[in-house]
């Protein structure tokens, strides 16, 4: 159900992109070229359990999926992410937002994500592949010490079994 929602939203933005923002794809700037390169590398050698591609014709707006790693309460869930590249991309981190609800102390209700490499520790040598790998890593190892939702973090620290149970339930409800 949720997947269907994501799809329709992506097609609507495709239409919007075709209307207004095509300029960014044709006049290929340095950032556009870098994004294109990353795209071709992603297509040639996709990272395991992840995928990412531009939403429409706008190179600077991508949608990505991460499959919940086995052995975690998120196992089997497919999580959709929205990636927006800034215009000076490799020098500024991309904005990554979860489109699928997830019970995780580092992801808030709006889908915002607290990940150090997407904020202060961003480096222009990082790529989307690495970002997705990092996101998969916080599925297996949540960071309860810099939480976005402190309640979830507290539960994770106090009663991991309960936390995992709720997370698995959410995964079943929203991500499958």
């Amino acid at each position, binding site marked *: 159900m949720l*997947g269907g929602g994501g799809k329709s939203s992506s097609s609507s933005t495709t239409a919007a992109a075709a209307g207004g923002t095509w300029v960014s794809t044709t006049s290929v700037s340095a950032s556009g070229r870098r994004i294109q*390169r*990353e795209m071709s590398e992603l297509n040639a050698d996709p990272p395991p359990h992840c995928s990412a591609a531009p939403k429409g*014709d706008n190179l600077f707006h991508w949608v990505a999926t991460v499959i919940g790693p086995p052995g975690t309460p998120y196992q089997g869930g497919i999580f959709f992410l929205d990636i927006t590249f800034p215009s000076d991309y490799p*020098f500024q981190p991309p904005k990554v937002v979860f489109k699928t609800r997830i019970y995780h102390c580092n992801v808030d209700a709006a889908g915002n994500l607290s990940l150090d490499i997407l904020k202060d520790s961003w480096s222009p040598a990082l790529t989307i592949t690495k970002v997705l790998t990092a996101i998969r890593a916080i599925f297996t190892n949540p960071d309860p010490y810099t939480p976005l939702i402190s309640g979830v973090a507290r539960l994770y620290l106090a009663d991991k079994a309960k936390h995992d149970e709720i997370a698995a339930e959410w995964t079943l409800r929203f991500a499958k």
Partner: protein
Amino acid sequence: MAREESKISPEDSQQPNSAAGNSQNVDDLFSPRFKSAAAMAGWDEEALIIASLVVEDTPDRQQSKHRKRSGLTFNTPPCSNSRRKRRIQRRSIVSTPIAPLNLEEEEDQQQISKQENEKESMEEKTSVEDEKKAKVNEPAPLHCMDKLREELSCAICLEICYEPSTTPCGHSFCKKCLRSAADKCGKRCPKCRQLISNGRSCTVNTVLWNTIQLLFPKEVEARKAAGREIECQGRESGSRSSSSSRRTRTRARVQDPALAARLQREDLAQLVNTNTNTTRRGTPVRGRRENDLSRLVSAGRRRRGTPGQDEDAAIALRLQREEFMEAFRGGSGQNNQQVRIPLSSARANLRAMATRAINRGRPV
């Protein structure tokens, strides 16, 4: 063959002479320096005479006595090789420096022209040049090219490093990339986050840059051409970003095709101007570089060709721009064609994943 015979006959006639007046011969054959060197090597006079005979044997002694003597000091032990063998060795010495990467081509040719006499040198030169041309034309058959490409590409722009600059921690990036990384992301190495003392004073790693130019000449050329375009775009992007904010507010006005076409035309004029400027400005720099890289003759040759190429690039860019304008007038769709092909496949992949997700969701 005929040449060899003609050489041998005067030598044969000379040999008895030299055998007769040996002490005198030794005196005018060998410089005092050589004699002292020979004494240090423990040669007696007999050995010297034998050496003198061998020296006389060598074909073009008459033309270049001095060089032969100084050369002898290196080639000292006049072993009992046959004449022909020695000649083959000599010739092979001349032809060995034809390195696969054809460095030092110019030097080789100079040496050859000095050492060989007219006909021979002409023949050799042409053959050498033919060989070299063949080598230039055929792409270097390196099976590790992909790995090299990966290794020599910049982590910031993901392309082959253009004018690579190396950080104190040993990581190399394009000079421009490193500079903007230092400006925008702080003075830390993008790869290992070590402090870079001063990102602004980056210098080009010459060895690496030369290597890259030799290994990926096409990419470097393409990048050079693109660099000019980016420069222009960088200049126009200032105006464009301000206009883009306007665009979001009053989209209808900016989407007016006439206005956009006018903007494009201005860009075009600017572009052509800057291109002619760079060609004019570029020449002295090019000359200086050529001095620096006089050993990298292959690269140098390419550079000598560039003034014409610059103009070509300018024309190509202009044509591209015109096409762009046409497409803009005709409708935005056509232009994205090339970008769309990979895009559409990627999108198809995603759709497939999404539908799979839905299907998997249903039975549950």
